[in-house]
């Protein structure tokens, strides 16, 4: 579920977010609620396993809005009390009081955009908060959501050294709960930071340094008892994000709100194949669409069986469990993993990039780091089969 508004745009972010002086929250809430109802009816989903409030900055929404949306879900489908309900939060909008409000509204997991624990780096990233505020926010969150607070960190910032990164991570490990996402900074076209780097005002981090940072982080995280369960995600004590796993396992999900993406079978209108859907990007247009027709879907594309398998492959291999035979069989009942990937699998297996065994097809630790170089060949292989 997409809350598209931010107080300020960060220098590295190219998401579909909007900085507006005043949000008509009542109207947005009404539209989110209406779209939730419409799309749940369309999908005929009976039971919801997880909810994720992303953005934007959904922690800027009021707890009553979150509550209203969750109530709407519970009214249209089964929403078990232990379903994971995550809210993305910025350290600058997370007082203990607000967090308590979100908890009362039904949120049971927090993902805090810490990004860095260094004030200079935070300024470079255009973040509103300081390292101290981030620390306070995480501590407050852990008090209210023990074992269910996640933090995000970025590495590979322009000018960042390997030492600086390991120090940041060390500090984060002292602060964190049982889930951390470590993202290599991606320079996105159209962002202020990318313009500075490509224009030569800031140094571009060398490829080999990024590889070293990634390896160092993995080593530290594993030593601290975390499982490296996806390219950028680490969890201990089983605190994996159910919601994000469902993306990588190519399960069904419904996207609600401006610019939200979904993948589901619209059984409610007689559909029988999986569709890729994107809601309209611009909030005002989206709201008008929701008001007039119940939902603001801007684009829907039927996914062919091959396209579905391509997604299963590209997403599943990002996880440490890989693609199980069972999941593959669900999307490809006639052609097994072995039938498709036996030949190239052997070569990649010999070179130490991948494993194909009774557990399914997955990357080795080395292979995961270069997955994007492996995928084009695997996709070609899939197209040929």
């Amino acid at each position, binding site marked *: 579920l997409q809350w598209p508004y931010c107080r300020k745009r960060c220098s590295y972010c190219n998401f579909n977010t909007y900085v507006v002086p005043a949000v008509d929250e009542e109207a947005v809430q009404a539209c989110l609620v209406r779209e939730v109802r419409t799309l749940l009816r369309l999908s005929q989903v009976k039971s919801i396993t997880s909810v994720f409030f992303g953005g934007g900055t959904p922690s800027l929404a009021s707890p009553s809005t979150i509550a209203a949306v969750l109530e709407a879900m519970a009214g249209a489908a089964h929403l078990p009390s232990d379903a994971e309900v995550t809210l993305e939060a910025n350290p600058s909008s997370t007082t203990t009081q607000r967090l308590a409000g979100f908890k009362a509204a039904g949120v049971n997991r927090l993902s805090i955009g810490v990004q860095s624990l260094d004030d200079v780096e935070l300024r470079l990233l255009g973040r509103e908060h300081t390292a101290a505020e981030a620390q306070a926010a995480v501590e407050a969150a852990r008090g209210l959501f023990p074992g269910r607070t996640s933090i995000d960190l970025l590495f590979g910032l322009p000018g960042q050294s390997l030492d600086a990164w390991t120090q940041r991570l060390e500090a984060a490990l002292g602060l964190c709960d049982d889930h951390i996402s470590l993202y*290599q*900074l991606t320079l996105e076209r159209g962002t202020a930071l990318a313009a500075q780097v490509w224009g030569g005002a800031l140094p571009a981090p060398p490829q080999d340094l990024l590889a070293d940072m990634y390896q160092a982080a993995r080593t530290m995280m594993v030593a601290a008892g975390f499982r490296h369960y996806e390219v950028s995600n680490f969890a201990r004590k089983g605190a994996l994000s159910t919601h994000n796993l469902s993306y*990588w396992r190519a399960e069904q999900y419904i996207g609600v709100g401006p610019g939200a993406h979904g993948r589901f079978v619209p059984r409610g209108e007689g559909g029988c194949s999986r569709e890729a859907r994107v809601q309209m990007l611009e909030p005002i247009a989206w709201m008008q669409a929701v008001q007039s027709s119940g939902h603001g879907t801007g684009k829907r594309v039927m996914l062919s069986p091959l396209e579905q398998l*391509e997604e299963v492959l*590209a997403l599943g291999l990002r996880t440490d469990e890989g693609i199980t035979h069972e999941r593959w069989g669900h999307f490809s009942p006639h052609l097994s993993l072995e039938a498709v990937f036996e030949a190239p699998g052997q070569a990649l297996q010999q070179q130490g990039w991948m494993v194909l065994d009774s557990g399914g097809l997955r990357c080795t630790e080395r292979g995961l*780091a270069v997955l994007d170089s492996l995928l*084009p060949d695997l*996709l070609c292989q899939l197209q040929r089969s």
Partner: protein
Amino acid sequence: MALAPRTVMWWARLRSLCPCAAPRCLPPWLPGGSAACKRLYGSRDKEKLDMSAYPVENIRNFSIIAHVDHGKSTLADRLLEITGTIAKTARNKQVLDKLQVERERGITVKAQSASLFYNHEGVNYLLNLIDTPGHVDFSYEVSRSLSACQGVILVVDANEGIQAQTVANFYLAFEAQLAIIPVINKIDLKHADPERVEKQIEKLFDIPIDECVRISAKQGTNVEKVLQKIIEKIPPPQCNTADPLKALVFDSTFDHYRGVIANIALFGGEIQKGHKIVSAHTKKRYEVNEVGILTPNEQPTHKLYAGQVGYVIAGMKEVTEAQIGDTLFLYKQPVEPLHGFKSAKPMVFAGMYPVDQTEYNNLKSALEKLTLNDSSVTIHRDSSLALGAGWRLAFYTAFMFGTVLKLRMEQVKHFLAFSPICLLSYSVYLFVNLQYVLFICFQEYGKAEITIINPAQFPDKISVSEYLEPTVLGTIVTPQEYIGKIIVLCQDRRAVQKDMLYIDEHRVMLKYLFPLNEIVLDFYDALKSLSSGYASFDYEDAGYQAADLIKMDILLNGNPVEELATIIHSDKAYATGKLLCERLKDAIPRQLFEIAIQAAIGKKIIARETLKAYRKNVVAKCYGGDITRRMKLLKRQAEGKKLMRKIGNVEVPRDAFIRVLKREPDK
């Protein structure tokens, strides 16, 4: 095929001629009044001309030669207008440049000819203008046009003065013992300095100043005087209609419906429909279907007589049957073939392979169309282990590759523009090869001579006693301030200075003997860029010279890259090898393993670069909203993989070789 719409346009112009033009001597095919206006197109149904009215002494055969842009085509337009050959309209811009590529670029590639009728002091003259290409890369076509002439008009720009091509063209005419009429053009220009140019002409060509004619072809100033000079200075052809037929083929074109149209100059006898003729070169026999003159499109006549210039259609199916320089004679009346005919030997070769083999047939038909009209290039099927099926293009002239091939490929594209595959011409691998001659010692048989085109055929060093490479004699004319840089450039290209002469106080003419492979790709561009465009260049074939040649291989992880193997002078091997390795390192993307990029002579490695393996390449964030974009990118990469060239296990993008082979302009 491509010419058909222009033919129609021509007739449209001729029709509009009647009311507005006032020619001095009405062309005989325009008897006047409305008869001409009724003629649409299709020349066969109208009355044929009687050419017997023009005896040898009333005929002048001439060419206009000039450096590019000095105004040759504009002068030709004026001559055609004054003699009433074409109507006087503002649209007469370079009407002899028939090919569209020529129109578009303002340069002439293929020679076109026209017969003009002119009355001088009560005598009707037949003036045959044989147009010549005006571009630096076409000396070969210039020389073959001159062989049908007795004189030339040498046009020099009053502002730019003598340029390299002026010199080269002058000597071509001079050596052919032709009468030379120097004409100084563009005297209307603000910076025109005809005195200076006259002095240059006197100094360099030893032609008295008072023989120069100052004109403005654009405004028509003094153009009449040029016509008078043609009649006075150029001798009529020395030949006799009573002799047996002897016709020189000096050009040929292809017509989709009528076959080959050979342009001929009669050195003796006469020719008409029904004659049985023989090619001295191929010994093949043909029956003449049609003869005529060019005006400048084909105009049938009853006969052609000795001294006249025109065309013959005789059932030849391919341009190669009408070899330039060949002699035609009557069946059972053989004559001594005309002096100077050599069966042309190709000088430059290019391997051409479609990147995507499914494009083979499309490219094939495009290339066939190209060669139909152009006998200076032939194609042969060829295949490469690495690149699949393709062609070897053989060019019968030592032209500079970059410029001309681009031109010729534009012609291909032009043909392709009629089909839905117009972008095709860009997706080919193209490699330039020269022909080298090697002498090999065999213990039992003694010495043998072999010619090498493909570096893959290069033999073991031990057995070779001598290597020969093709050379050209280059002429450079430049303002003196660039001499230093140009000498350095030439030395860097292994050229040997043969001559250096100040043609006036500011301009210098340099002559250098160049190895062809040093200029074939980019010398002209380099020269132009270091002289801010002021230096001009022309060249002629100069045979073979001994050179220390070796074969250099480029290896990727030990596997040779066929496209990059070269025959190279040993002095250049190290620097070139190093450069190629560095360029390849930039052109090949990082892969999952380390790649050694090496240059090797035999087993000896002379340069090496290392492309490190990817250690990390995986996108950080991939959630619900990122997936669509991600899949698009991955699928594009997967498609790209299919077009990669695999060398061993190394994947090389298709543009990498072109990026590697492209030379930087010399500093």
